[in-house]
């Protein structure tokens, strides 16, 4: 079980680990962007009741919500090369980081789609009717009236799932990604001070989560500026 516990090491490991924070944030950032795009595309068939596509989308969302991110990661890691090899595309040598970003984007896409749909459906139909009554067209009404209000409702949930994804990046090392956690694992094999490494990692994750929470709280206040009582979530 390693060597004797040495609390000083917790501090000493911090700079080494923080150097790899960039990779962690890269995963969060790209999967958030792609996840949002996927989420919007996937929300549409359910909102507009498009047959068949709607069923496929429902199945996709159900699967993502029904399985651990770790399993999704393995499925993409082993499954995507197999799938693409059918068309003779070889991605077996692709950097593991891309598999992680693909997995997390797909995962976010499903979660975001549900958040968007819920938020849009939470807007009173009266808002749309009022928009039509002053002569707006459906698209105008959607983008100018419904969407801005929906974003306010969706925001706290999106913030939550982004923080969740930040914590989930700690699993990327399982397919060999050199992020903070991956670097931690190599530190463990070279120093045999596992406990100190994990405590050190916990501190970094905790601080980053606190910073994210702070940023989200400030943005939430901005989104709610025209709400008299500052309703922060539904």
């Amino acid at each position, binding site marked *: 079980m390693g060597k004797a516990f040495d609390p000083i090491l917790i501090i000493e490991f911090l700079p080494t680990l923080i150097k790899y924070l960039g990779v962690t944030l890269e995963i969060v950032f790209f999967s958030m962007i792609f996840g949002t795009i996927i989420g919007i595309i996937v929300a549409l068939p359910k909102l507009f009741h498009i047959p068949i596509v709607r069923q496929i989308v429902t199945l996709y969302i159900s699967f993502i919500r029904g399985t651990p991110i770790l399993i999704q990661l393995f499925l993409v890691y082993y*499954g995507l090369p*197999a799938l693409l090899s059918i068309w003779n595309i070889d991605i077996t040598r692709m950097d593991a980081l891309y598999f992680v970003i693909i997995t997390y984007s797909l995962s976010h896409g499903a979660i975001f789609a549900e958040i968007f749909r819920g938020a849009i459906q939470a807007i009173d139909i009266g808002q749309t009717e009022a928009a039509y009554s002053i002569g707006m067209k459906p698209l105008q009404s959607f983008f100018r009236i419904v969407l801005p209000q929906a974003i306010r409702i969706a925001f706290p949930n999106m913030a939550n799932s982004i923080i969740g994804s930040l914590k*989930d990046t*700690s699993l990327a090392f399982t397919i060999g990604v050199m992020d903070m956690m991956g670097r931690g694992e190599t530190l463990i094999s070279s120093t045999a001070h596992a406990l100190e490494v994990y405590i050190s990692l916990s501190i970094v994750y905790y601080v980053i989560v606190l910073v994210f929470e702070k940023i989200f709280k400030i943005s939430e206040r901005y989104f709610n500026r025209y709400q008299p009582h500052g309703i922060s979530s539904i």
Partner: protein
Amino acid sequence: MTIDYSFIWVAFKEILKAVPLTLVLTFVPIVIGFLIGLAVALIRAYNIKFLSQIANFYVSFFRGTPAIMHIMVIYFGFPILLDYLIKVFNLPFQSNNVPIVLFVITALTLTAGSYLSEIIRSGISSVSKGQIEAAYTIGMNTFQVVKRIVLPQALAQSVPNITNLIIGFLHTTSIAFLVSQKEITGAANIVASKNLKFLEAFIAAGIIYWVITLIIEALLYFMEKKAKSYSRNAF
């Protein structure tokens, strides 16, 4: 590279044996964590001196760090702590006699407690202040108000969130495979490595998780409907 469909079925049958452990790792922490969450939520709601500061940090830290850290820190830290206590008090056993699964359950219980406390707390704050005052004006004491007025409504309010948490925890247990637990993911990993058929094994594991998720959701949906029966019109 091709998929060996028949091996999915082979793996499926093998992994199925790991379902009980996954369910234990899911529900034991949720049940014990519920008690922790309840205590912590009340400590915070009633702002009990000193304890509430500890409670705040506990909730914030455990919710702010990945569950894998909780497992790893306890997996590596507990034996060190235990060995230290054994040495100090001269106790007649060894830390490596403690099964790893207990460390995992301890860690996940603390994780669950922090999330549940937050859920229960938001349930508590959903009970209107007026009802609490009304309870005081008919002469109830604080304990009676908490037990009879606040908690029943707070918990009914919490059911959907607890449902989500249970599903989340079912999935979180997958990381226990990293400390070589033979739950669903661990079992899949073993079958996969033995036969070098990773994709097939993880497809089987994915299907099993998916089905369990759907079953739990369906069960909890019915419970939820029952718990909310007093507010048929309000929602």
